[in-house]
């Protein structure tokens, strides 16, 4: 759901990287520090041993002093604090902001209770995904949403174009891009207990998907109980001038158990949770139905349409999509993006879009797309890594059970 293409990370590792035996060896990514944008926590990361790498035009920490494996495990045992200020938060306001947004996303925005949000997909005319996003209806006249850093320019241009057209027909909508705020993600079993120390509001009443504007550590924050790890946790939008203080306070209150965690572990965590990474598991040519996000298409929307590409998507809902996103276990080397998936007879039936070694499960996990009909759990497959087939099987996701905080 979040992030962008991690495979384009300038890994700045001295070895050459090969994603598959057919791809050419990638060159080391030389990006001058001066060209990259820095979040409010940049110096804080460096002071804490952050290994900074270029990501979507920003200089972001891929890991700190602990290994990616330890970091990933620690998130699920204790907790992690991520700097996700590179992502783009914006507000849509006005009497018609809800019907406006409904022309661009598949969610039933009107049906959301105030203070509630959901994962959704911005679609294009062909029914493909422009980006995925967590949107929240704050009130009937205010929607808060967060989009991927790598899609910022594309998404904002798209929204602006449609907003102009909508307004020219008399619609009342405006936007504000929250560049004055920084987004932090606090995830794991200690997220709620630690955050509770920093706010007077009773967090036990804020359930998964819910939103509140409240005072945290002395500043007005937008708080959403959501995340990209499968754990209970929050995304906190804090005024940028208070971001470092908030990060410090969170780490202190946890007595070191919650650790600063980088993008490397973030990718492992979201993969374990079965969540899409836009740019890998979801792209312009993949529809939300194919991606297994039919649940995100509001019931009323399935009947009425009214979003870009609705005709394609509604047809897929009727006939079933031709390809489907599934999870895989495999033996041998971890399956990576673009590895071919074959059936047991050696016929190509699909492709891996994300994969790696799961630090929590201690085995290879991957996700990808296979032809409908071949997608059932348990289906035995062969995955080609560097030209050699390795045994695998299709499995349901998430790989690691989610722990979202929901009312019992």
């Amino acid at each position, binding site marked *: 759901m979040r992030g962008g293409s991690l495979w384009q990370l300038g*890994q*700045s*590792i*001295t*070895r*050459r*990287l*090969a*994603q598959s035996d057919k791809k050419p*060896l990638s060159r*080391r990514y*030389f990006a001058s520090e001066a060209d990259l944008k820095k979040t409010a926590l940049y110096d804080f990361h460096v002071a804490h*041993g952050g*290994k900074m790498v270029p990501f979507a035009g920003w200089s972001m920490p891929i*890991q700190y*002093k602990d*290994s*990616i*494996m330890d970091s*990933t495990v620690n998130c699920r045992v204790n907790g992690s604090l991520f700097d996700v200020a590179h992502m783009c938060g914006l507000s849509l306001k006005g009497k018609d902001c809800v019907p406006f947004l409904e022309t661009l996303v598949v969610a039933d925005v009107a049906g959301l209770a105030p203070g509630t949000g959901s994962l959704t997909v911005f679609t294009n005319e062909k029914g493909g995904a422009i980006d995925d996003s967590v949107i929240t209806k704050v009130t009937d006249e205010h929607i808060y949403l967060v989009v991927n850093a790598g899609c910022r320019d594309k998404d904002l241009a798209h929204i602006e174009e449609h907003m102009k057209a909508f307004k020219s027909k008399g619609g009342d909508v405006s936007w504000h891009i929250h560049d004055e705020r920084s987004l932090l993600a606090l995830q794991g079993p200690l997220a709620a207990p630690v955050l509770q120390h920093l706010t007077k509001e009773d967090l036990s009443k804020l359930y998964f998907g819910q939103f509140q504007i409240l005072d945290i550590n002395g500043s007005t924050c937008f708080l959403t109980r959501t995340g990209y790890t499968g754990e209970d946790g929050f995304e906190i939008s804090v005024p940028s001038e208070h971001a470092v203080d908030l990060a410090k306070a969170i780490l202190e209150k946890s007595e070191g158990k919650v650790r600063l965690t980088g993008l*490397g572990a973030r*990718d*492992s965590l979201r993969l374990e949770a079965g969540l899409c990474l836009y740019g890998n598991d979801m792209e312009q040519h993949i529809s939300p139905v194919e991606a297994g996000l039919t649940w995100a298409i509001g019931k009323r929307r399935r009947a009425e349409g009214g979003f870009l590409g609705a005709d394609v998507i509604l047809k897929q809902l009727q006939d079933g999509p031709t390809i489907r996103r599934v999870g895989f276990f495999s033996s*041998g*080397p*971890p399956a*990576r993006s673009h590895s071919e998936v074959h059936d047991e007879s050696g016929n190509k039936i699909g492709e891996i879009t994300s994969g*790696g*070694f799961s*630090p929590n499960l201690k085995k290879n996990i991957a996700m990808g797309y296979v032809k409908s009909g071949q997608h059932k759990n348990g289906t035995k497959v062969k995955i080609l890594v*560097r030209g050699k087939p390795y045994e695998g099987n299709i499995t349901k996701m998430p790989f690691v059970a989610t722990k979202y905080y929901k009312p019992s």
Partner: protein
Amino acid sequence: MALRMWASSTANALKLSSSASKSHLLPAFSISRCFSSVLEGLKYANSHEWVKHEGSVATIGISDHAQDHLGEVVFVELPEEKSSVSKEKNFGAVESVKATSEILSPISGEVIEVNTKLADSPGLINSSPYEEGWMIKVKPSNPAELESLMGPKEYTKFCEEEDAAH
């Protein structure tokens, strides 16, 4: 990053001094300014593999600098015994959590032994890159190739320059 590499090389230093080695002489090592350990008595390729030439056998592995940059190794792909390797050609791959790296042979020859321990314990490459993390033993077909490899001092400088460039 310096702190992490220091911790890594300290761990390696301890491992090296406590592991039982075939000869009674403990290998001397130098801590380079880039904080990875570079072993004396070995030759190095600019793709970060090392070669230990003892008589008619050459042992090959990857350097401490390489394993540190790679991160935790989760899988190693190695050739079969009796297969041949060629200088600067790929003979296998090392997988870490986040990336795959090819391993290139610093010399040409026939593979006479493969470290089967790496199948169950790929992490030996991280904990003991010069000792227990050895990958293959080769009968060199052209010993002169060793001359063109770097010595420890040269390799140390090479690592520093590479790190400084990014």
